[in-house]
């Protein structure tokens, strides 16, 4: 088993693991962690594709590697935006859960008409 | 000459690995946070230092050697500081953990 195959399997497992965490974890901060796990799994898939594409004296194909770098930066920006929303929601309502029968959205039915 | 250098590398790296081992054992076995901190900061800094020492004969250029030393210096610095920070944090909480 080559390191790239192994990394590919790890990537697949990480995607599955992150997906599970994303679904079952009610806390948004934990969902972000899970989302980052899926992200790194996806990046690993790019990574093995890059490694398997070694040719012309390069030990890797640079294009997928560059895509991973772009992807990592975007994933960080996503985490930052989500965190800002969560903290603001916490300031407003003191609640941090997203999936319960959102007590915070109840007032909207009466209040949003204002 | 090469053989002697290899021998030196092996000895230093093996010693380094041993310190990592000791540090982990300390972290796992020592009874309270402060003593664990003690084990950690002694062991991992010495461990990395010996590994770096062992790798020095194998580097290609002077710059790479300097980088290796810089890595060690950085870890020493941050290790010392963070040990201090963690220790303070522990003391503020009464070290009851």
């Amino acid at each position, binding site marked *: 088993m080559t390191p790239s195959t192994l990394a590919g399997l790890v990537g697949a497992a990480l995607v599955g693991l992150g997906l599970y965490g994303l679904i079952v974890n009610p806390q948004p901060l934990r969902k972000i962690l899970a989302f980052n796990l899926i992200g790194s799994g996806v990046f*690993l898939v790019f990574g093995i594709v890059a490694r*398997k594409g070694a040719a012309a004296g390069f030990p890797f194909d640079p294009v997928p590697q560059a895509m991973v770098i772009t992807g990592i930066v975007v994933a960080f920006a996503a985490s930052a935006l989500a965190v800002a929303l969560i903290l603001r929601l916490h300031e407003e309502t003191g609640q941090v859960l997203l999936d319960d029968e959102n007590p915070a959205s109840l007032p909207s039915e009466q209040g949003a008409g204002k | 000459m090469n053989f002697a250098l290899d021998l030196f590398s092996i000895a230093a790296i093996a010693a380094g690995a041993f310190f990592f081992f000791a540090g982990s054992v300390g972290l796992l076995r020592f009874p309270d946070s402060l003593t664990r901190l003690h084990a950690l900061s002694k062991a991992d800094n010495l461990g990395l230092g010996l590994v770096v020492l062992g790798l020095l004969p194998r580097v290609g250029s002077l710059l790479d050697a300097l980088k290796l030393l810089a890595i060690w210096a950085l870890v020493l610095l941050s290790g010392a500081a963070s040990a201090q920070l963690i220790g303070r944090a522990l003391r503020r909480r009464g070290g009851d953990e």
Partner: protein
Amino acid sequence: MSVLQILDVGLALLVLAVAVWTIAAREIFGAVVAYVAYGLLLAIVWIRLFAPDVALTEAAIGSGVTGILLVTSGARLKSAGKASAAAKPGLSLHLSAAALSLLAATALAGVILALPEPSPTLAPEARQELAATGLGNPVTAVLIAWRSFDTMLEKIVLLLAVVGVWSVASDRFWGGAPAPLGRANPQGALLLLEQTLVPLGILVGVHIFWVGANAPGGAFQAGAILAAMWMIVMIARASEPPRVNSLWLRLALISGPAVFIVAGLAGIGMAGNFFAYPDGFAKPIILFIEAFMLLTIAATLPVLVAGPPRRSFGP
């Protein structure tokens, strides 16, 4: 099985074990610490995939800066988390989620094992075009020359993220500064780090930026390191997060994409195409663009971590 293979398998198992902990940990703090450790291990995996550029980016942005973002917000949420942790999803949800995830992972693993090998690659094309750029690092060439359009737009994504993060502020704090990152009275050790580690870190950052043209490194990685150093300074309270209406801050945040676009537009005059670089001048132009990207990344990451303005005054 060689020693290397055993090491690879061990590393893979370790990565997975830490990942499982990230998902399963009871407390958010433990999960975040595990996530940062996970990022470090992943960096080693990336080295095994011959991707040092990615390893550095993953360690710096993927785990380092994301880690501080999560740990800071986790601390702010901690009290709330205890109060409202009651709602636990039911067993049926757990089971169906597990089944779905298992299915996805298995299908993915099967497909990955079946991918062609040696796989189709752009490495030969990259080798051929690399000479024209004057660069030695093909990853930098992809980012700043051949797929520069992606890179420029990704800077816009970062900028929109900044606008999004700022937009959740209270109206009364607009124009002010985010809350300080650190505690009121920084300890001696922190000041020591600020005075010794930070200058060293800036040196390392500049070095990684400089070698990026020919060796692993570049604006992304160096920018992340400089960003981390700035955050240490802010945690030590030697400097405060800047006000959101500071012109200097805003110029720093847009300088990367702005210079990129100007160079891109200049390309049509100098080389006949948008984002093309004239022969013989590619490398200096690329380094020039990268320098501003470095500034933008080093400024953007801490601004995103610091969050929306929370005080009506500022430094």
